[in-house]
Each structure stands twice: as C-alpha cells, then as structure tokens.
C-alpha cells in the first residue's frame, strides 16, 4: 500500500515536476552568504587610540572642577561612582570613551531581541558578599530572604532551564561536562576532579580564610594554596594525573570561557578558582545557577549607573594628566564636539585597563603599574546572529548555553532564553563567543583588527555549521564585534606576586586605581569589588 501510494506520488510528481520544481522552496547546495546582512562593530578603538598621539588634540576651551574624576565607565568605575555617591561624595564626574558605559558588559538590540556583546551572566553569589547582595536587592534581582536566611532571587533573573547542553558527535547531551562515551578510567578522573573541587570549596588556609573566594583578595594567604599560582593549570593537571582528553578539553574550555586563555596559559590557582570559588547559595537556586538577562550584564551596568546621579559623560577621552598643588588636572576630549576640557579634580580614579592608565600617567612618577607586556589580554570575537531556525540534531533541546565538544569557539548562548512567551517559531538571536587564543595576544589582536567583516563572516558561519549543519540559509543577520583587549588572564605569578598588589596602590592620595586588571580575573564581582575598594580608599576609610 505504501509503495503504491509512493508510486502514485512519484508518477504524479514526475508529470508536473518540471513545472513545479522551480517553485518549491529548496536548498541549493553550497548556499552563499549573500542573504546575510550585518556589520563589524567593536570597542571604540579609534577614540582609544587618540591617546597614542595626543599632540593633535585641541587646547581646552573651558575648565571644570570636581572633587573626584573617574576615568572609565566599566563595572569598576560605575561601582566606585555608586559607592562614592551613597557615602556622601556626590561631586564626581565620570568620563567614558565609549558611547555606552559598561566596558565589556556591552549590549545591543535589534527587532528580534536584546543581546549581549560581552559579559552576560552573574553566578548566584556567595552569601558573604554583602555588598553585592545589597546591590542585587536594590536592582530587584534579590527579592528577599527565606526564613532560613538564604536569599531568594527573582525568578525572571535566574537563568531559565534548560541551562546547558553539549554537542558530542552530533548528539546534544545535557550539561557541559562530557558524559557520552567515556570509559571507566575517564569517568574516574572526572569524579576525582570534582571531588577535589568539593574539598577545595570548603578548604581554609592557616589564616582561617577560604582557600578560594570571590573577591579573590579575601582568599587565604596560606602558601599551601598560593603556591598553586606559580605553575600553569595544564602542568598542575598533568602532575596530578588528570590526563583524560575529555577532562582536559572541559577544563581548557572553562579557562577559555572565563579568562580568554588556555589551561596552559593560566595559573593552577586560577584554574581551580574557577570551580572552587563558586559557593553561591540561594533559597530558590543552587550554587551552579546563574543570573542572566537578554542584554547580559548590561542590565547590572544600567542599575549601577542609575544608583548615582553624578554626571557621566560618554564619548569622552581623558588624555592628559598632571598633578597640581591641590590635586590633579586632567584634559578630556569630547569625540562628538571635538572640544577639550580641563578638569580640575582633588582626586582621580583611573578605572581603566592598566595599559591605558600607564599612558595617562606617562608624566606622573611614583606608580607601580605593570608594564603592558606583563598582562595577557586575548582578543575576543563575539557574533550576534539572528536565525530563523536552528536545524536540531538528536538530544536535548535549545538551551541557554550551547557548546560543541572540541569546538574552536566557546559556543553560543540563546539571548532569548529569559523570554516568557511561548515559542512561536519566530527568529531568535544567538550570541557566539570566541576568544582568539590561537596565537599570542599581541599578534592575534593585530590580526583581528585587520580582518574585515567579509573575512569574519565565513568563519563565523562555518563555526555555526559545525553546531547545526545546514543552518546557513536560516541566518538572517550576523553582527560581529571584536574586542582587542577582551579580558585579563591570570597567568602564572600574576595573582599572588607582589606586583599586582603594588600596582593598585594609590599615588600620593591623589591617583587611585580600580579595574579587573588589578584583580587579574575579569568577572563582574571583581569589577564591582575593585570599584568599592578604590572608593573606600578615596573616602579615606
């Protein structure tokens, strides 16, 4: 019966086939990329590079006086501004060279969805991080405390399930820890590693402090743990006989994800910290849960910004800094009006990456900033793709974080994950993260800056094809963002060498520093903490 039916179908199709075929929607093999629209975006490198030759900038046309000038509107700068504001220092001015504050917590929006251009989640925090919890309560992310004392988080801000899936040879499994096709020896290594992490989560040093803690400056000074900063994570893993390829892939993935560097490039302390510092607790979530928003951490940035009323000027570059008898004089340049301003401040907070601070302090002696070569900042590529559909392989459905085993990129997140509406099959925006770790950061950065959109697009599409074969015709838009200095990597010796602590020391109670570069780890909590630390120094507390 079936065969007769199909015979009839085929013969009738043959009758009219020639007429119909051109009208049928189909897939031409080797579909081109001509249907994909998009553009290349990026940090305002042009404005940033004004600093390299400040001699061409116009002389200042007017003067402005403030108590505290904050240079840099990333998380650290905004956090400091907020802290100063609520502790009585409202006379501040923040200048930010980008058009949108937030540093790498940038975001965009199109007709389909908001989406992140960088940092996009915050793990459920350690309940001892009182300042952060207080901030989250003010943003409506933390809605109260359960009778047992544990915080209750806003259901709409906790990442909705399903959270993570991993594609192994075309099959999607739940979670990012590879589970499919592991032999007993590999399983044993995974179990041993996670057992080690559980031990380290509760471990304390001789000083009574946690071995691993966020912010990391509150971690134990015990040499037993700090010595782990001297060797690379990869060497440590080999030494401890963690050699299973699947485990090493997973740990390398984790390092690339959080630090933009491989396990061979970061210290063992940092590699373990990634796992062992996750001690979050909540009444309605686990420590493995994260808080996220369609626009990523831009949500938190907006809240930080709104919690202080002091002026904030975007598109403005601070380019010259000198000390005066009463404080600091800084020249700023407004990219839009092409005018310079002389800002006279009693104190200045440099909430910029260290290489920017170094340039600004070219004529100021007495600081201990690390030479630019001492810090490892990998360039990152981020692509936001608007897709009509994602041809789905077997296994778990679309999740928030979608990764392929062995993939060059870090995979993509579904920016529409937190939307509550029923899935109508409408287009989605997915955000692909790709730290460019193939070569040293310097050459990789130069190459990335020189690569045009026309060269990026085929690479991005080819990468997504490895996740979803046949997806190309469904991609409608692909915008690409290149971060020259994506984030600092905790290379061996950086975190617990003396130089990092020395670098953030204020200069003559006039010049202060706050940035995740001074933590050596670029996560929201560290930026937030850096801002508060510096604000406290400024307030003299």
């Amino acid at each position: 019966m079936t065969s007769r039916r199909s015979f009839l179908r085929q013969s009738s199709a043959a009758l009219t086939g020639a007429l119909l075929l051109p009208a049928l929607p189909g897939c031409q093999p080797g579909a081109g990329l001509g249907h994909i629209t998009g553009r290349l975006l990026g940090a305002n490198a042009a404005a940033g590079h004004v600093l390299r030759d400040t001699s061409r900038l116009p002389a200042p046309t007017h003067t402005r006086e403030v108590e505290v000038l904050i240079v840099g509107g990333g998380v650290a700068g905004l956090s400091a501004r907020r802290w100063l504001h609520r502790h009585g220092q409202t006379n501040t001015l923040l200048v930010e060279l980008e058009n949108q504050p937030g540093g790498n917590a940038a975001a965009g929006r199109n007709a389909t969805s908001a989406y992140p251009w960088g940092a996009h989640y915050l793990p459920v925090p350690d309940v001892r991080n009182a300042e952060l919890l207080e901030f989250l309560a003010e943003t409506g992310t933390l809605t109260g405390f359960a009778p047992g004392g544990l915080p209750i988080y806003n259901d709409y801000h906790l990442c909705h399930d399903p959270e993570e899936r991993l594609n192994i040879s075309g099959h999607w499994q739940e979670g990012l820890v590879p589970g499919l096709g592991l032999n007993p020896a590999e399983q044993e290594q995974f179990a041993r590693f996670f057992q080690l992490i559980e031990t380290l989560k509760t471990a304390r040093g001789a000083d009574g402090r946690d071995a691993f803690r966020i912010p990391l400056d509150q971690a134990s000074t015990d040499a037993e743990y700090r010595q782990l900063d001297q060797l690379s994570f990869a060497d440590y893993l080999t030494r401890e006989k963690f050699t299973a390829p699947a485990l090493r892939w997973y740990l390398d993935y984790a390092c690339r994800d959080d630090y933009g560097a491989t396990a061979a490039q970061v210290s063992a302390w940092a590699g373990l910290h990634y796992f062992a510092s996750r001690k979050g607790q909540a009444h309605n979530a686990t420590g493995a849960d994260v808080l996220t928003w369609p626009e990523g951490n831009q949500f938190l940035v907006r809240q930080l910004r709104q919690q202080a009323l002091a002026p904030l000027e975007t598109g403005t570059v601070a380019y010259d800094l000198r000390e005066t008898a009463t404080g600091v004089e800084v020249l700023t340049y407004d990219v839009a009006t092409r005018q310079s301003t002389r800002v006279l401040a009693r104190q200045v907070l440099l909430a910029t990456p260290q290489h920017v601070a170094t340039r600004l302090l070219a004529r100021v002696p007495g600081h201990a900033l690390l030479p630019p070569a001492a810090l490892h900042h990998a360039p990152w590529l981020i692509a936001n793709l608007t897709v009509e559909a994602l041809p789905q392989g077997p296994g778990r459905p679309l999740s928030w974080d979608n990764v392929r085993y062995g993939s060059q990129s870090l995979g993509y997140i579904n920016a529409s994950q937190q939307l509550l509406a029923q899935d109508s099959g409408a287009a989605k925006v997915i955000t692909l993260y790709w730290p460019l770790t193939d070569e040293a950061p310097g050459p990789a950065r130069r190459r990335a800056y020189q690569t045009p959109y026309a060269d990026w697009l085929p690479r991005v599409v080819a990468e997504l094809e490895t996740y979803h074969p046949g997806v190309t015709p469904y991609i409608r838009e692909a915008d690409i963002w290149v971060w020259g200095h994506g984030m600092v990597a905790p290379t061996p010796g950086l975190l617990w060498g003396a130089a990092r602590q020395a670098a953030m020391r204020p200069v003559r109670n006039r010049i202060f520093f706050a940035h995740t570069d001074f933590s050596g780890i670029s996560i929201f909590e560290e930026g937030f903490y850096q801002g508060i630390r510096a604000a406290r120094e400024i307030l003299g507390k």
Partner: protein
Amino acid sequence: MVESVAEPRAAAPTADRQPPGLLLLAVAVIATCGLIYELIAGTLASYLLGDSVTQFSTIIGAYLFAMGIGSWLSKYLDGPLLRWFIRLEILVGLVGGCMAPVLFLSFEYVASFRLLLYALVGLTGVLVGIEIPLLMRILEHRYSFKDLVARVFAVDYVGALLASLIFPMVLVPQLGLIRTSLLFGAMNLVVAAVVLGRFAETRPYRRQFTAGIVVSLLGLGTLFVLADKLLAHTETLAFQDQVIYSKSTPYQRIALTRNSRELRLFLNGNLQFSSADEYRYHEALVHPLLQALPRARRVLVLGGGDGLAVRELLKYPRLRSIHLVDLDPGMTELFRQNELLLALNKGALNHPKVQVTNADAYQWVRQDTARYDAIVVDFPDPGNYSIGKLYSAAFYTALVRRLAPGGRLVVQSTSPYLARQSFWCVAHTLAAVGLHTVPYHLYVPSFGEWGFVLAGPDAQWRGDAGPLPAGLRYITPATIHDMLRFPPDMSEVPTEINQLNNQALVRYFEEDWGPYVH
C-alpha cells in the same frame, strides 16, 4: 489522426466516420465521473458534518435534482454540439475535480459550509446532467432511437456500477478524497481532449481548446502533487479517524477528526477533547471552582480556546464577565465560526458576556491590572520547556496577584495516574506560592484518569458550598466528594517545586510519559 479533411456541416455535427465506440466509451467515462463526484460530495459531507445517513440522502437528492435541471437546460444548447460538449467536459473536469480540495480547504473559512457544499453539488449536478442528453443528441444520427437509448443508458449504468465499486474499495483508501476528485476531473478533461483530437470538425477551435485543456490538466496535476503537501501533516500522523480539518498556526498544529460517534480535537497530535466525553472534563474543570465561589462575578479563563470551559461557565447567570485569553487566534476563530464546533460549545465564545483576547498568557497576566473572582487555567500538558513556564511558581505568583480577595483558581494538572509526579508537582508548586490546594480527579474515558488542582486563600471548601446549575451530566455534590479521594496508586508523592530555573515539571512529565511513548 484526423481521417477526414472535409469541412463538417456547421449545424449538424456528425460522427459518421468516427469509430462508433469512441463516444460510447466517453459515455462510460463521464458516467463514472458523474457518480464519483456524487459519492465524493456525500462522503465529504458525512466526514465534515457527521450524520452520514442524512448527509448522503440529501446530497444524492440534491445532486439528482440538479442533474434534472441540467437535462432540462440541455435543450437550450444549439449550434455546434460537439463544441458545447468539449466545453462542458472541461467545465465538469474543473468543477468536479476541484470539488473535494475546495470543500476541504474552505471548511475553516466559510461561515456557512453547507451553502458552499450544496452550491458546488448543485453546479456539478447541473453540468453532469447536461452531458448525457447532449451526447445523445450528438449520436442521434448514428443509431436508431431504440438502439441509442439502449446503448447510452446501458453504458451509463455500467459506468455507475464501476464507480460505486472502485470508490470505496480502491479510490478512498489509496488516493483519498482530494486526489480522487482531482483524478476524475482529469478524466473529464481527457475525454474532452480525445474528442477534440478525433473529430475533424473541431479543427477551427482546436488550438484554443487544447490550450485550455493543457492548462486545466496542469492545474489539477499541481493540486494532485500538492495535496500530499497540504495534507501530509495530518494524514501521516495516522489519526485513527478521518481528519476533517487541519491547520498549522505559528504556535501549533490543530487537527479535528471525526468518526460516526465523536469529534476529536488534537493540538500537535495530542488529544484535547472528544465530543463524546468532554463534558466530564469541562464540568469537572469548572463547577467545583464555581461552587466554591457562590458570589463570583468575574472570571478569567487562560487557554481553553475551544470555548468548552466557557460554555460551562455560562451556566451561571450571576457571572458578569468572562475573559478568555488564548494564545492562538487560529483556535478561537475556529471555535467562533465553524458550525459544527459552535454546536459543541453552544456559541460560547460569541456570547455578549465573553471577551476573547489572543495573547501570550504569561505576558498578559503580568501586564493585566484587573482582579478576578475565579481563574480557570486550562493549558496544554507541560510537554516542553516553553509550556512548562506556564506551570511555574513564578507564573502562579503572577496569577495570584490577579485574584480578587477570596478568589480561587483551578489548574488542569495532567493525569495523577499516568503522570503521578507531574500532577503532584503542579499541586506542590501551587502550594509553594502560598495557596491552599484541593487536588481532585475523575475518569474521562478518552483520556483516562485526569486531575485538577483547586487553589485558594484558605482550605475551607470541601465540595459542599453553593448549589450547582441544573442539567449537569457528571458533576453532582456526590461526584465532587468522590473526586477528592485519591486511591493509593495515585496518592501524593514528594516532588520538587516547578521553577523557571529548574523546570522540574517538564522533567517529571518526560519521565512519567516515557514508558508510554517508547
């Protein structure tokens, strides 16, 4: 092909030099086609409207009557009769051939389906009625009258026998109604083509008619191929019964099937109700809640675009307004317009007290500012993460904000027998947002054991509050009492709370149903 080059006489077409059997063969073919159209119309009417005896009887009557009109009208056709005949065959081919696809596809759109059905049946009947008298007139010089009558009618009835045998045995099972209709339309066109090719006198208009026939054949052929595409979704799902309606909306695939006993609605292949026993489900969904709220005035219904819960609500004259929010306009429009479904929901969605909004329930509930005395939540089962959000603690928290003081809600909570963890997970999630819950269940033959959770600010109600409307077929104070008892195989099991960040319910539902789908 053409045997004679002589110009035919203008007014009296002859078939003298033609093979005598050709036109008789045409009679056999058109007779078969004619009866097939009648059978298609009758079958379609029974499929779509039910009550096959009435449908077949009235369709056959209307069809035969229309044929009579056609026979009568045939006398007004003068001039070159062969030309009329070819024209007629093309028309019959198109009208008859498209009858089934047109009726199937228009079922959802036209306000009065019967009118269209009988109009098409009438038109086809008239055209078919002209055929035989016209052919007899064409053949009148070829045979003596008694021979002519004997032969034409003999062949006609043989064709009818053939049609009546192959229709149920071969055509419907193998091709389905749409393709059968198209195939026989094409046969009429082939008759037109053969006559056009074999008779010399058709030469002056041959080119013009050939073009018409080719275009018509291509049209029918296209539909023949597309029929599969159009109906693939429904037919390949292997519904037990005949699919009488199917439509893919952006949100779901709606399919309506019927057999002699009942009408069934499927969303994405999952049974939503059977007309045979849906009253049990909808009475159990609505009446315990309303009985618990003797002073309820305003009701919100989420989901339930079929209007069947609203039908039950309208049995309470005290209600002032019923607001139904359903995602899919495809559903609510179908249940507001289709005669058959209007009979089932008693036009509930068109009632002046009822307001229908097509919106995503989650977004809508968060934005709405009104308060309701009663909320009826009748969503599809939590079979995916998207729907799972509508059973989450966060959603119930938003829903509680819409309850007036003392208000209560009821939630369709899947089967406590087939999906025991899922059922109790819904109950526990409602309890987790601070509601007192009253779980209950009943037997719905087409579903099995089914459960609901009534939830409100207190645990006062135990099935003994206000009066019930007259005429209920399942719910009585005694049945309510029975529904509250859970035997050991359905009794409470511990579960997690369904939250957006764990979607525990979807996971339970997958586990619970796993044994049944593999």
